[in-house]
C-alpha cells in the first residue's frame, strides 16, 4: 500500500500489521495505557546487588525478552556493552534490544547479533550497528525506529513491551532514586530514562555512585526500581559530550544561520514570549546563538528554549533572553551545571516533551524550530535516517515531533555533502513528512513550503524566497544526483511516524 507520504509500505511485516502514515494528526489512538505489574518491596530488604548477573537472574530475564537502555551517556556509554556481555555469558539468547539510541561505542553489539544473543532491535542506530544491519539478513525482524516522542508513546501503549529497563545513573541511593546531575559520570537530564521505568516490568539501575538516601531530585523514582547494581564506571565522561557541539565556522553555514534569524524576524515571531527548539548540529547551534544575540539587542524576552541543551541555550537563560529552559538531553558541562543550580532550567521527560498520544506535549508550544537532515525532496519531505547510498546511519531524534509541533519549522541543510546533493526529486527515506516542514534554508537560497501561503505572504518583500526546484536545478549544474543505491527486497528497518503509523521502510543495501 502507498501511505500519505507516497511511500510503498507492506500491509504486514514479521507478523505485525502495519498502519500506513495518513497525515501528522490523522490517526487518533484507541485503547489504554499499558500498566506494568504491581510491585511489592519489603522495607527490611535491600535493593543493592553485587553484580549485573545477580540482578538479571533476580528479574528472571529469559530468551526472547526485551531490554531497554537510555542514551544519555551517548558515545561514552559503557552500560549497554556491559549488560549485553553478561547476558551473553549467561547463555540468554534472542533478546530484543530497545535502546533509545546506539552510538559508535556500541559497535561490539555486532558480535552479539552474529552469535544470536541480540536478534531484534527497536531504537536508533547511529553509526556502525546501523551500517551492519543495513546489509540485511542480520536481524530476525526488521528494526523499528521511532522518534523521541514515538518511543515514549510506544512504551506507554505497550507496543514496545519492555521486560527489563536498565538505567545507567551517575548518582543513585539505595532505594533507586536517581538523577543524571551528579557524580563523575554526570550527564545532565535523564528524560529518556523516565518513561522506560514507568512502563517496564522490571527496572535495574546501574550506577557508579551510590549516595545516602534520599537522592533528589528523583528523576527515576524508587517506586519503579527493583534492583540497583554498583559498578566501577558507567561511562567515559569525554564521550558523554559528543562532538556535534562545536558551532560551525564555515562562512556558508554561518550565513544560513543568519538567514534563519532573518526568516523568523520577517515572520514576526521574534517577539516577547517566543519559544524555540534549539538543535545540536553546528548550524542549529549558530542559529540559536544568533537568535539570542538578536533578542538581546532588541530587548526581547522569550518564554522557553528546548532541545539538546548546550552552553548556547544556557546563555539565553543567564543573559535573560529566555525565561526557562526545558531540558530533555544535556550536551555539555555548562548545561549540566546550569541544570544543577538554576531552577528555571527544568528537566523534562520524553512523554512531556513529545508524546502525541498524551494530553499534549511541549513541542506543541514551540513557535519555531531549527532542524537538520541528510536529504529533502520537492515536497519538503526530510530524510534524517539514511544516507544517499542507502545506509541506515542515524536515529530520528525529535525531528518528527518538533516539526509537527512547531509553528515554523526551519530545516537548515547545505546543498551538497561531498559529491552528493541534498535536495532530491525523491529522498532515499522519508523520516519527517513535508507537510510539517515550513522552510528550507540552504547556502544558495531560502525556500518556503507552498502549503504555507501565510508565511510566504509574511516574508514577501523582506526575505528573498526561491522555489526549492530552482535551488535543485542550480546545484545540479555542478553536483549531479548520484544513481540510486542498489537495494534488495529485504526490509531491514521500519521508520515509524510519531503516532505509530509507518512513514517508510528501509531496504537492505546490496554489497
Amino acid at each position, binding site marked *: 500500500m502507498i501511505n500519505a507520504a507516497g511511500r510503498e509500505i507492506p500491509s504486514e511485516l514479521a507478523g505485525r500489521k502495519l498502519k500506513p502514515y495518513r497525515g501528522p494528526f490523522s490517526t487518533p489512538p484507541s485503547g489504554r495505557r499499558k500498566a506494568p505489574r504491581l510491585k511489592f518491596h519489603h522495607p527490611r530488604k535491600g535493593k543493592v546487588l553485587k553484580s549485573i548477573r545477580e540482578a538479571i537472574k533476580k528479574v528472571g530475564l529469559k530468551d526472547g525478552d526485551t531490554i531497554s537502555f537510555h542514551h544519555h551517556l551517548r558515545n561514552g556509554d559503557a552500560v549497554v556493552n556491559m549488560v549485553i556481555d553478561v547476558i551473553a555469558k549467561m547463555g540468554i539468547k534472542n533478546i530484543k534490544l530497545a535502546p533509545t539510541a546506539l552510538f559508535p561505542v556500541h559497535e561490539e553489539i555486532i558480535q552479539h547479533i552474529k552469535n544470536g544473543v541480540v536478534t531484534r532491535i527497536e531504537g536508533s542506530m547511529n553509526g556502525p550497528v546501523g551500517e551492519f544491519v543495513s546489509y540485511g539478513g542480520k536481524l530476525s525482524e526488521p528494526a523499528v525506529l521511532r522518534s523521541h516522542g514515538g518511543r515514549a508513546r510506544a512504551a506507554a501503549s505497550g507496543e514496545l513491551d519492555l521486560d527489563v529497563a536498565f538505567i545507567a545513573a551517575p548518582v543513585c541511593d539505595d532505594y533507586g532514586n536517581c538523577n543524571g546531575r551528579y557524580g563523575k559520570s554526570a550527564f545532565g537530564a535523564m528524560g529518556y530514562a523516565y518513561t522506560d521505568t514507568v512502563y517496564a516490568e522490571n527496572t535495574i539501575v546501574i550506577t557508579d555512585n551510590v549516595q545516602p538516601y534520599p537522592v533528589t531530585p528523583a528523576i527515576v523514582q524508587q517506586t519503579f526500581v527493583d534492583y540497583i547494581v554498583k559498578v566501577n564506571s558507567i561511562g567515559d565522561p569525554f564521550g558523554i559530550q559528543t562532538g556535534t557541539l562545536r558551532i560551525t565556522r564555515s*562562512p*556558508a553555514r*554561518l*550565513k544560513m544561520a543568519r538567514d534563519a534569524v532573518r526568516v523568523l524576524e520577517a515572520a514576526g515571531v521574534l517577539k516577547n514570549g517566543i519559544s524555540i527548539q534549539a538543535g545540536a548540529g553546528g548550524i542549529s547551534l549558530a542559529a540559536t546563538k544568533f537568535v539570542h544575540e538578536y533578542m538581546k539587542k532588541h530587548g526581547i524576552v522569550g518564554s522557553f528554549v528546548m532541545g539538546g541543551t548546550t552552553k548556547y541555550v544556557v546563555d539565553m537563560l543567564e543573559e535573560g533572553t529566555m525565561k526557562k529552559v526545558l531540558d530533555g538531553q544535556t550536551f555539555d558541562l555548562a548545561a549540566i551545571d546550569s541544570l544543577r543550580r538554576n531552577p528555571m532550567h527544568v528537566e523534562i521527560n520524553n512523554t512531556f516533551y513529545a508524546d502525541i498520544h498524551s494530553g499534549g506535549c511541549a513541542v506543541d508550544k514551540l513557535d519555531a524550530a531549527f532542524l537538520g537532515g541528510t536529504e529533502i525532496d520537492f515536497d519538503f519531505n526530510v530524510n534524517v535516517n539514511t*544516507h*544517499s*547510498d*542507502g545506509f541506515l546511519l542515524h536515529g530520528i531524534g525529535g525531528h518528527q515531533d518538533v516539526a509537527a509541533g512547531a509553528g515554523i519549522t526551519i530545516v537548515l541543510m547545505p546543498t*551538497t*555533502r*561531498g*559529491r*552528493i546533493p541534498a535536495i532530491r526529486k525523491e529522498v532515499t527515506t522519508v523520516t519527517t513528512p513535508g507537510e510539517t516542514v515550513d522552510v528550507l534554508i540552504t*547556502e*544558495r537560497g531560502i525556500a518556503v513550503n507552498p502549503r504555507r501561503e501565510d508565511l510566504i505572504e509574511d516574508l514577501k518583500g523582506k526575505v528573498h524566497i526561491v522555489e526549492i526546484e530552482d535551488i535543485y536545478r*542550480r*546545484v545540479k*549544474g*555542478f*553536483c*549531479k544526483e*548520484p*544513481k540510486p*543505491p542498489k537495494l534488495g527486497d529485504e526490509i531491514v528497518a521500519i521508520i515509524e511516524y510519531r503516532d505509530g503509523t509507518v512513514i517508510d521502510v528501509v531496504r537492505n543495501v546490496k554489497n
Partner: protein
Amino acid sequence: MKEIKVGTENERDCLVTVGEGKGVDINVEAKVELTRDDVVDIVGECIDLYDVDNITVTVREFGSLDYVIRARTCCALYKFIGKKIKEKVFIREETQRDRFRRSRLYVPGNNPRLQINAGVFGSDCIILDLEDSVSPEQKEAARFLVKEALKTLDFEEAEVWVRVNREFLEEDIEQVLVGNPHGICLPKSECADDIKEVEIIIEKYEKMYSMKGTKLMPIIESARGILNLEEIAGASDRIVALAFGAEDFTRDIGGDKSWDTLLYARSKLVTVAKSFDIQALDTVYSRIDDMDGLMDETKRIIKMGFDGKGAIHPEQIRYIHECFTPTKGEIEYAKRVMKAIEEAKRKDLGVISLDGRMIDKPVVKRAERILKLGGVL
C-alpha cells in the same frame, strides 16, 4: 617509471596519480562507494579527451565535485604526455563596464573547498587567484582547477575575474580564458607596457577561442605603479577599474600600513581612475576578525571616492556592503532629485533647482548611484 601526482588529500579535493600501464587502467577510491562509477566515467572522459593509451590513472577522492576530478585528471594527463588539447570554450555574457564592484572576494585558485561556495556570499566580484595564494609547484594544477571552476561553478550574480601571475602571463591566460572569465586582474602593474603585454596575450587567445570582451583590472602595488598611474589607466580600453594593493606597496616604499602612509597613493589612484572614467577599488582588509576596523576603513575610502573594497574572507562582504548602503535620508533626497528632473523635463525647463540649489549633471549622477546602491533603481 614516470609518475605524475596532482591534487591533495584535503576535504573536497582529490589526488590523481598517472603512470604508465597496459591499455587504460582506472582505479578509484571514492569517499562514498555509490559515486565510484561516476568518478570512473569522468576519468574515462578525460582520457578520451587526451587520447592516451597504456596508462594507469588512480584517483583518491575526498568528496570532490566533478569539476575537481576533471581538473586534477586533465592536469595530470597533460603533465604526463606534455600535449595540449583543443577544448570547448565556455560561453559567458560580457560584463558591464560600470556595474557595481563594491566588494571583490579573493578565492585561492587551488583550493576546491573555498571555491565551491564562493558565489553564495553576494560579493559583486569574485577573483579566482593564481598568484599569491598558490605555491609555485601548484601553479599548473591551479590553472586547470580555475578553468574548470569557471566552466562549472555557480557564481550567481558575481562578476568573475582571474588574478594571473606576472611571470606566467601566457600560461595562465591560455588556460583560464577557456573558462571565459569576465576579466583578468594584472598584479604589479607598473607601466603602460605591462598592460600592452597582457593585452596582446588576451587578444591572441580571444581570437583563438572566438570570444571577446575580456576586461582588465590592473592592480597597483608599487611606488612605480603609483607614479605611472596615468599611462597605466590609459593603456587599454579593456580597463574597467584600478585596484590598489597596499600589502606590496608598503613593502615597496618601506612604510607601514597606516592611513597616513597610504593616503597619497589612494588619493592619486582615485583621481586618476575618475579622470579616465573607470572605477577605483581599494585594497583588501587583512585582519579578518576586526570588522569594526574593516568598516571604519571602508567608510573612509568611500568618502574618498573609491568604488569598492577587497575581501579575503566571505564574512567581510556584508560589512563592506553595509558601508556602501546609503542612508534613508540620502535615498529620500536622491528620489526628490530624480522627481525634480522628471518634472523639469515635462515642463521643458532648462534649469532645474531643488531647495534653492541647482541640479546639474554630477548631482543627478550621484542621485542615480545612490538609488542603485540602495536597491531602489
